[in-house]
């Protein structure tokens, strides 16, 4: 099965530790992702102003590229891109007046009316493979790893793009359980990390991180499992400040795709743990999930 894949800007640079283990894992699972040969920025955020259609052009162009290639599904890994693309797609399928305006404006492009389905990788794992089948593919069960799934905002809100129940999502817990890890439920798993406030008010970010990290740790989590590169940055940088100020002990932050690759028995080098915050390799070694010769951890987080 070939699926169109939209990576987005951040996954090619800062978040290679999200993308590369995902691509390798899907290959191991027999799902072939075909990266779009032409893609552009998705716009990162969906335009909320009713008259602002120009910012819908970028995400819609990506959807048209997928349709041109004869794909009916577009798989997205980055939570921000997923949200922007899926909302733009809903606009094109559900709002005839705006669709017509956009199609007329993009007169060099074929008309588009939301034919491509935008899917997040977690939906693909749940709906195409299934947790039971995934469990059978696990070669290195992540035994003893107690991790708190952190969803953030953009996979669940607004309601019409949610990949799971808005108030009580379980998709990441189910995923972790299939890999043999112990999911730690905590009430702040869908609370905002501060998002792009890190651009305007970086001083507020440690406070957002504290309100998410500390409740997870209090419930016994040895680390957090993330899906979004901006959550990773805000929680990672926020945590560094909290550790400095002795407001938090510091826990490893994982991307869910790294845990998938590890559990499928792939070479840990594909996980790029050197790009993670909070030294995940130390925890993995402690639990016997990584050999002492595993890729060395570089200090100081991301470049």
């Amino acid at each position: 099965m070939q699926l169109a894949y939209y990576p987005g800007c951040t996954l090619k640079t800062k978040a290679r530790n999200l993308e590369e283990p995902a691509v390798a894992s899907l290959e191991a699972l027999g799902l072939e992702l075909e990266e779009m040969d032409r893609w552009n920025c998705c716009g990162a955020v969906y335009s909320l102003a009713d008259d602002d259609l120009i910012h819908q052009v970028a995400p819609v162009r990506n959807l048209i590229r997928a349709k041109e290639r004869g794909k009916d599904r577009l798989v997205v890994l980055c939570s921000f891109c997923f949200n922007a693309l899926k909302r733009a797609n809903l606009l094109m399928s559900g709002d005839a007046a705006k669709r017509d305006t956009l199609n007329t404006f993009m007169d060099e492009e074929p008309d588009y009316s939301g034919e491509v389905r935008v899917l997040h990788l977690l939906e693909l794992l749940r709906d195409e493979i299934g947790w039971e089948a995934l469990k059978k593919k696990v070669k290195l069960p992540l035994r003893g790893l107690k991790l708190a799934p952190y969803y953030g905002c953009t996979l669940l809100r607004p309601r019409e793009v949610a990949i799971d129940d808005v108030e009580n999502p379980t998709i990441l817990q189910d995923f972790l359980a299939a890999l043999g890890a112990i999911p730690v439920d905590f009430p702040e798993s869908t609370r905002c990390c501060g998002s792009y406030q890190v651009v305007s008010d970086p001083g507020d970010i440690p406070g957002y991180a504290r309100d998410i990290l500390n409740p997870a740790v209090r419930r016994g989590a040895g680390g957090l499992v993330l899906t979004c590169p901006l959550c990773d940055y805000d929680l990672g940088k926020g945590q560094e400040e909290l550790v400095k100020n002795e407001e938090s002990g510091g826990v490893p932050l994982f991307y869910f795709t790294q845990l998938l690759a590890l559990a499928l028995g792939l070479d840990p080098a594909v996980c790029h743990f050197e790009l993670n915050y909070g030294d995940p390799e130390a925890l993995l070694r402690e639990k016997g999930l990584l050999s002492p010769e595993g890729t060395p951890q570089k200090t100081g987080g991301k470049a």
Partner: protein
Amino acid sequence: MPVTISSARTAGGFVKKIKELSGENLHLCYQCGTCSGGCPAASHMDLSPRQIIHLARLGLDEDIADCRTVWVCASCLACTVACPRGFDLSRLMEAIRQLSLRQRADHVRPEDIPMKERGELPQIAMVSGLRKFSG
């Protein structure tokens, strides 16, 4: 704080503009405060999310003009999915920000971001931040 209400204000240009930009019916809100109660950024705000709706629909734009609240909102949509009246507050916050940004009053300019942070921030942070905070 004392609030003076007048029909000239509630039917005035500011209310018309934010209705048009947000596409929302401001009268849906019955001030239950669920938005403020669930907002993860409320402690960083001066006016609560509930107060923003109330002041906006009364046309009291000068009370909102210099507030920190609309710039602290990260459109996380916790309020949107929780609202018992189906009011999308994120669109009202956007409308108020847009009114300011369209007057060329940028909240953040690229040159204000320190060079070190420019290199470290993920692209989605730079793109989304500058789209939300500059015109």
